[in-house]
């Protein structure tokens, strides 16, 4: 018999032998739904206007689960705007965004975060008046102590969770060489340290997918090498990445596939060598603006 499972609003067809198996599958449908979805992120005809300026112009692309996908393009190509649109920083003009099989187009940023999609900011946004440690500790989702009443009813449980979160934050700081500034205010960090703090907050959030906006900008090469390794390691454990970077070494070594954007449109996508040898890409980066963006 043919059986349909409801996969987040869409019906998927599954051929199943018996009724009891069907019931089993029905109970597993959420799990199956996840398995069927090979795309972590799907962006369909995304458009974003700022007044008269079309920053993103009908971009479509996909990020497969388990990949480290790169996103490159000249300055002003619309990369950061695309991130903002996906994260729900502002309402988009038109288009659709599917994350892990679910339509997240209308969701504001705090809700996309809770679905497991975390992003860093190109221009760091630390909580300037808070310490590095507290910048990190505030991140994990669904903290008991974030509920006003839990602090009165279950203070012990809140404190225990705080200790766990603190330990985790200490680990992240150790990894990112931030431990010596643990109790320094976020606003007093150097530019590179602020980028690391951005990355640290993303690591604290236990996400399904991380969008990094120029993680390498202003970070010293040795540490950058370690960060690249860490990204690769997290990726091996199943975390999906989408990375904007101008540092071509980082992109070419780490990312596959690589998406190329220019003038708000998706120019092409492919492996590192395909991208490097593509005439359109060269033109976009070296000479003005690409004419055709299909």
């Amino acid at each position: 018999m043919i059986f349909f499972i409801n996969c987040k609003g869409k019906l998927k067809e599954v051929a199943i032998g018996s009724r009891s198996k069907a019931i089993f599958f029905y109970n597993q449908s959420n799990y199956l739904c996840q398995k069927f979805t090979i795309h972590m992120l799907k962006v369909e005809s995304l458009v974003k206007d700022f007044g008269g300026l079309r920053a993103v112009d009908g971009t479509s692309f996909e990020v497969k689960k388990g990949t480290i996908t790169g996103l490159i393009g000249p300055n002003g190509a619309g990369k950061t705007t695309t991130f903002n649109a996906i994260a729900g920083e502002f309402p988009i003009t038109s288009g659709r965004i599917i994350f892990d099989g679910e339509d997240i187009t209308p969701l504001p940023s705090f809700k996309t975060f809770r679905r497991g999609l975390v992003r860093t900011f190109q221009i760091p946004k630390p909580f300037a008046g808070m310490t590095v440690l507290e910048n990190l500790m505030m991140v994990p989702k669904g903290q008991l102590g974030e509920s006003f009443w839990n602090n009165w009813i279950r203070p012990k449980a809140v404190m225990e969770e705080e200790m766990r979160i603190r330990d985790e934050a200490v680990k992240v700081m150790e990894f990112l060489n931030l431990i010596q500034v643990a109790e320094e205010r976020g606003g007093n960090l150097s530019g590179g340290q602020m980028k690391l703090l951005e990355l640290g907050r993303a690591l604290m959030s236990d996400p399904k997918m991380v969008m990094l906006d120029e993680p390498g900008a202003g970070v010293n090469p040795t540490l950058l090498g370690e960060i690249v390794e860490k990204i690769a390691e997290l990726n091996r454990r199943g975390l999906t990445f989408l990375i904007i970077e101008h540092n071509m070494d980082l992109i070419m070594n780490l990312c596959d596939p690589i998406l190329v954007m220019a003038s708000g449109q998706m120019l092409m996508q492919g492996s590192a060598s395909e991208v490097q040898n593509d005439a359109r890409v060269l033109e976009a980066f070296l000479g003005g603006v690409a004419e055709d963006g299909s």
Partner: protein
Amino acid sequence: MELLGVVSFLVFFLIQSSFFSLTSIGLNIQWGFTGLFNVGIAGFFAVGAYTSAIMTGPHYDDTLFGGYDLPVPVGWLGAIVVTAFVAAIIGYITLRLREDFLAISTFGIAVSIQLIANNMDQLTRGPEGLYSLPKPLEDLSASPLVDNILYLGVCIGVIGLVYWGFERILRSPWGRVLRAIREDEHAAMAMGKNVFAFRLQSFILGSATMGLAGALYANFIGFISPTDFLPIFTIQIFVMVIVGGSGNNLGAIVGSVVMWGVWSASDSLIAAVVSPDFQTQAAAARIVLIGLILVLMLLYRPQGLLPEKHIVSAAGRMKLKGED
């Protein structure tokens, strides 16, 4: 005799300071911790004052409501609940909007509340106000001084309780989110925090505290009318919080006592040295003086007398007490 006079004055002064202190703590959670610019403080204070007055006051022949003669603590609880309710409605509508809308709308609300107090005779008796309000513990003695000392004790008890509660909740992950929202609301949202919900909670909590302060005031003075709740009160509270140290509850209390001291002293000074013909003009000079103190403070000690704590949450330090 001299000494008794001084003591009486001091007690009276401290009681008045406690109304300001409590209101300042309320503003501190909104402005100091969450960055909410509430300029309708006088309005929330008035709602609390009128609520308690109506609930605990005697029966007046010319009002439709009120005269319930309820025990004073019930009136105070009522003041908290009603102010919280009013704040919830205002906050729900305005906190989603752009930041500056909160300022505009809270200012408008405070003006409206004063207009309501002035015109809704059946509830507030208009400009004539509500009088003969009961004062807790006043039957215990016949001496006004003892009465006042007892009332001061009550005020200190209430402030102590509120202070303890706020210190505790603000040092929690909940308070940490408030601080993060104050620092950067977009980043807080990107970290999954429902900024609107936290702001609403902070707004309600702070406003309810202002309402409680209003109730304490009403039952002490025993007579309230719309002129008690002018916009100057809002300005005074802001100056107190900024001078004391916004983001620090103890600072809010210290700032309140200090600035109320400055205000009262300038009052006495004007009464003593300025000829009666110019008293009103001289009274305006006090506002200039307050403004001057504010400017000097912002220039030379913007963090206030007692700066906010470097670390917000109790668990947010590298070495906790009892750890090595």
